[in-house]
């Protein structure tokens, strides 16, 4: 018959792993059968009366029944886990053990219950905060974003910006740079209490795109400038991007994602931790997609900025519409700035509400710049 131990016994002369033994509950107490150390076929037994036992709950999760007593060879500790043995023990135990047994059982129940409660609360809180961060509750994000100094935002954006430019062919001077600088000055002059120092770079690429990074870094591709029939159209895109920065949209997105990822990495014990998350985000800054509400906000504030700067705001609307109609799928700007008819309509209505104002033209000749 094979030996099927059901408990571990610890004692001074046993190794620290404990000695596997077969426990039998009998009328007077417990009998433990051990295999002999020297000969596996030989067995020896020890008995202990109930009167000498003290019991408690123990083990890693406090879910094992621990019985201790002092035998002839010193202190003995028995770890019981098998539910059948524990049940038999509780039935056979005399009165003086009933109270400690109940206390041990109560302890086990308490540990389980506390764990369940803690997990329910934490699970609920996690779920609520993740859901809250993910859907709608922008209040929380805005509160967090408000506490982040502009200086941090600038550093975050700058590293991604320099990284990106290092791999691109940048247009440093020329009429196009002068034109974009003029547009930017016209726009930024109209921003009261501007905490950002905007840096705008033109990148030589046929990609029809422009994007803004947190901290005031804006990249415009020559492809987008070629597509524009009037300078007001480029100014419209610039006004839109400037407002993504001013409204701190990028930061809001990061806080949202960071919150989500940080929670996940803590829960799953992710070794690279937050450092890795931050690095990952540096990459993602480039492909950052803004939410629909953020796009609308940037559109509307952009429109007002154009109006204040006396640049014809209709350029913005017509450019968006033209891009959306003709080049769907090929214009990158649209993949990060999804265009919809509703968005253009909204802008038109907004524009109609503003009193008419004679726009002031730019000092440069757009056609010659575009051709170059």
């Amino acid at each position, binding site marked *: 018959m094979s030996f*099927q*131990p*059901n*408990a*571990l016994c*610890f004692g*001074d002369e046993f*190794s*620290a*792993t*404990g000695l*596997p033994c077969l426990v039998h509950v009998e009328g007077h107490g417990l009998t433990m059968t051990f295999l002999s150390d020297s000969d596996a076929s030989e067995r020896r037994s020890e008995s202990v009366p109930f009167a000498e036992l003290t019991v408690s709950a*123990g*083990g*890693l*999760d*406090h879910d*094992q029944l621990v019985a*201790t007593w002092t035998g002839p060879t010193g*202190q003995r*500790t028995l*770890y019981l*886990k098998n539910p059948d043995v524990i049940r038999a023990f509780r039935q056979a135990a005399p009165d003086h053990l009933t109270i400690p047994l109940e206390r041990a059982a109560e302890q086990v129940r308490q540990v389980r219950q506390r*764990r369940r409660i*803690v*997990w329910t609360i*934490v699970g609920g809180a996690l779920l609520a905060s993740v859901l809250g961060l993910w859907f709608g509750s922008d209040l929380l994000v805005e509160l967090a974003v408000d506490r982040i100094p502009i200086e941090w935002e600038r550093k975050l954006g700058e590293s991604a910006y320099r*990284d990106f430019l290092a*791999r691109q062919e940048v247009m440093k001077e020329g009429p196009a740079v002068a034109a974009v600088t003029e547009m930017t000055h016209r726009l930024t002059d109209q921003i009261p209490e501007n905490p950002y120092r905007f840096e705008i770079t033109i990148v030589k690429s046929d990609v029809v795109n422009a994007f803004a990074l947190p901290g005031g870094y804006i990249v415009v591709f020559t492809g987008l400038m070629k597509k524009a029939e009037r300078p007001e159209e480029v100014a419209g895109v610039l006004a839109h991007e400037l407002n993504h920065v001013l409204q701190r949209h990028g930061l809001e997105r990061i806080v949202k994602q960071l919150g989500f990822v940080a929670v996940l990495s*803590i*829960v*799953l*014990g*992710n*070794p*690279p931790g937050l450092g890795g998350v931050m690095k990952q985000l540096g990459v993602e800054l480039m492909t950052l997609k803004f939410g629909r509400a953020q796009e609308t906000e940037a559109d509307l504030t952009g429109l007002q900025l154009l109006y204040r700067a006396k640049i014809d705001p209709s350029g913005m609307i017509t450019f968006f519409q033209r891009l959306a109609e003709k080049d769907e799928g090929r214009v990158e700007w649209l993949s990060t700035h999804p265009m919809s008819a509703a968005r253009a309509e909204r802008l038109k209505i907004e524009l109609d509400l503003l009193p008419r104002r004679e726009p002031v033209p730019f000092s440069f000749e757009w056609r010659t710049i575009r051709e170059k």
Partner: protein
Amino acid sequence: MKSEILYPGAFPMVRVELAEGEHIKAESGAMVACSPTIDIESKMEGGFLGALSRKFLTGEKFFFQTLRASRGAGEVLLAPTVPGEIVVLDLDGVSEYMVQKDGFLAGADGVTIDSQMQSMSRGLLGGEGFFILKMSGKGMLLLNSFGAVHKIELKPAQEYIVDNSHLVAWSTTTSYNIEKATSGWVASFTSGEGFVCRFRGPGLVFIQSRNPGGFGAWVRQFIPVTE
């Protein structure tokens, strides 16, 4: 099933001899070489969901490989990914061990592997995450570590303090609390230890002589940053 550790030290390998019909499950990718009588099968231990939970919750591999001596007796050579010692444990059907997520190398078929959720404080501060592996059943269990393995034997009520990132495995008869390394919060972190585990016997605690996270941070500074 017999096992022998070859080249003990930093780069060991373990040779497992299988009789005909015997099999062993090992971490995916652990097999180095084997006799031609051995068949390699891939298996999702605990079914698809079990494997999925193990993959996502403990960071262990999704598949285990099963090495089966189906066409006669043979031997298998197994090695872990990281440099470090291999320990052989013999599970007797009663003893159970909790194993840190990267610690499993291989186990006999009688060994059961579960992912188990830890308590809130242990999961949050223990550095192992909320889910760790629990090994139970009967048979040979091979664990691997990063660096050398040190075995701490605890008598009943004996205590020992271990830095949490050095844990490899511990028996379920032990219990531990997580505490700050020093009495003050600031000193706890400036001492470089952060949180430690106060273990209480009886039972065994296996620790590794190197901290994988610390090593990773050290290596990171030498990696050139280019895209």
